[in-house]
């Protein structure tokens, strides 16, 4: 894409930074000297300046009205719904029918946020119940008291498609790894914990197992999301390392076995060793991440269960994961679509780094072949992390009984090309044959491939 043959791309980056007034010291002198002697460089600088000036000269758009009232009204609703409970203290503004309509949606949201692990063998195991309940809210007239058991005790039966869906998912059974008391879900409904579990962003580890976790209140935007998206990973969990999951990355495979091999190759290239999950042969290998899978399996909307699907749990610093994903992004044939699933609109830096490499079927790659993230020479990766392939057949076997192992990789062993070495995070890759991108006969042939691995 280089349109200027004279300067190299790195040089052109310098010229771009020069236009922005971001060069200092030697770099500035270098560019100034070059501009004095190089017409091509001067031409590029002129072009960039013109472009920048034109962009800055675009008309300024204004809303044209104050959003204050509408924002405050919606915020009030959100705070009301943030409890996910019918209010015991009536709010000043909301009339009865309107309040209960919103409360019904909040209840449906609570059900959607209930995370299940489908099981055919252990249907008496526990579930993680995510209950909307912010610990503190801005005080004032919007603050309302929440009854801890209201969300479930007053639950109308099948009040919405969302509720139906959640109920249906719940009937499939559920499990978590370390809290194995039978019927915790029913127990939770009858007498939910009074205390509210809370973890700090980026701080202490989230409590994701069989306990109440806080979720963000339901806003109109969230309602929209819930209509089209699977349940969310709690925000706090997405920040954790160890028993938390940063996000899922759903990748469709363009060519079955070949695409899987490509994916494996990208992982290896960035220093993430792939281990088949076979504990019988490899004592000490990681156990399947049951709570991770519970979240995944609950996302029936996101995963077509009729097609072969592979789960690959990667535990590594974010950079090599991002690097592998950037290479996926470049390969439109083997990875026609890439989607990061975290359902969290607030900034989560690690998730946002991976979101950069999302791609729809009709989109061009965001990555470029000369991007350092996809250049093997720049990666210099050894022992960056580990990936574990989890076969579907294994989802229901005794592996689930094993507690999650905390795998951390020595910072000293990870080699990064710049910046500090980061702590490992956990990302679950969900690889699935892209059925709609293949001819029917090809799909039939290829669809068996991933499972054979």
């Amino acid at each position: 894409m280089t349109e200027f043959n004279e300067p190299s791309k790195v040089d052109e980056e310098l010229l771009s930074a020069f236009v922005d007034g971001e060069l200092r010291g030697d770099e500035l002198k270098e560019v100034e000297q070059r501009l004095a002697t190089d017409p091509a460089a001067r031409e590029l600088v002129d072009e960039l300046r013109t472009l920048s000036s034109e962009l800055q000269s675009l008309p300024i758009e204004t809303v044209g009205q104050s959003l204050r009232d509408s924002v405050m009204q919606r915020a009030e609703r959100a705070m009301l719904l943030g409890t996910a409970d019918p209010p015991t203290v009536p709010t000043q503004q909301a009339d009865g029918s309107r309040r209960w309509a919103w409360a019904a949606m909040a209840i449906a949201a609570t059900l959607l946020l209930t995370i299940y692990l489908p099981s055919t063998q252990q249907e008496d195991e526990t579930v993680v119940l995510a209950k909307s309940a912010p610990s503190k809210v801005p005080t004032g007239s919007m603050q309302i008291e929440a009854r801890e058991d209201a969300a479930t005790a007053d639950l109308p039966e099948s009040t919405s498609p969302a509720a139906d869906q959640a109920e249906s998912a719940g009937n499939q059974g559920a499990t978590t790894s370390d809290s194995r008391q039978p019927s915790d879900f029913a127990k939770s409904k009858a007498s939910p914990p009074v205390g509210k579990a809370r973890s700090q962003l980026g701080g202490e580890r989230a409590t994701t197992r069989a306990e109440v976790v806080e979720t963000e209140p339901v806003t109109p935007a969230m309602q929209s999301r819930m209509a089209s998206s699977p349940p969310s990973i709690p925000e706090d969990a997405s920040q954790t390392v160890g028993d938390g999951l940063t996000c899922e990355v759903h990748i469709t495979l363009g060519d079955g076995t070949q695409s899987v091999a490509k994916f494996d190759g990208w992982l290896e290239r960035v220093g993430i060793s792939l281990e088949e999950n076979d504990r019988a042969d490899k004592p000490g290998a990681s156990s399947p991440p049951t709570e991770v899978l519970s979240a995944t399996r609950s996302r029936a909307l996101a995963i077509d269960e009729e097609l072969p699907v592979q789960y690959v749990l990667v535990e590594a610093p974010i950079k090599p994961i991002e690097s592998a994903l950037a290479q996926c992004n470049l390969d439109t044939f083997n990875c026609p679509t890439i989607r990061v699933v975290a359902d969290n609109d607030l900034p989560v830096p690690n998730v946002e780094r991976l979101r950069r490499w999302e791609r729809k079927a009709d989109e061009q790659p965001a990555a470029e072949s000369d991007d350092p993230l996809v250049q093997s020479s720049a990666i210099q990766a050894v022992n960056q992390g580990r990936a574990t392939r989890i076969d579907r057949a294994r989802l229901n076997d005794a592996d689930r009984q094993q507690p999650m192992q905390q795998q951390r990789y020595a910072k000293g062993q990870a080699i990064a090309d710049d910046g500090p070495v980061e702590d490992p995070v956990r990302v679950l890759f969900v690889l699935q044959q892209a059925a709609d991108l293949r001819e029917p006969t090809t799909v039939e042939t290829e669809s068996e491939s991933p499972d054979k691995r």
Partner: protein
Amino acid sequence: MRNVTNDSNDTDDRRLVQSTLAGDQDAFGILVERHQDRIFNTLVRVLGCRDDARDMVQDAFVQAFVKLESFRGDAKFYTWVYRIAMNLALSHRRRRRPIDSLDAAKENVGQEPMSQQPTAAQALLDQERVDQLQHALLQLGDEHRQILVLREFEGCDYEAISEILDMPVGTVRSRLYRARMQLKQQLRKMLPDEIAKSE
């Protein structure tokens, strides 16, 4: 140029945040009115649609209000809301079909009279060029459009962009360069249409 991290209203913003947390809703209303247009202008560039941008601005402030307690003041209030808004906008855009025609882009961005007096430079930009630039911006990938918006419309320096996007300054520099090259490429693609129209 405005700079997200050098907002002179920052101290006042913090005071309004504290007032809101203490129960004064009017204080948050002031924050909304103070920042709504700036965020709106940015989101129009990102989304290419005034209606969507207006919705996203409202959603962002609603989320900010609900999450206000988690705002610890490490960043400027505006930066914090901006990041919420940008994430909402990008998520929204990912769920929506891309705008694929100049006419559609014009329709969505709108040709409504602007509330502010045009600068001399604006006057120099004829409407066709405005349309081209807006359309070309919408053709960029999210990460390229986002960084261009931060630089050219928000007036952020590299350090501020680095803070907002959580990436090294070196990456900001290279990505901005790539974004500009892609924008040039998109604009170049429009030239044949322009020539054809003139014939």
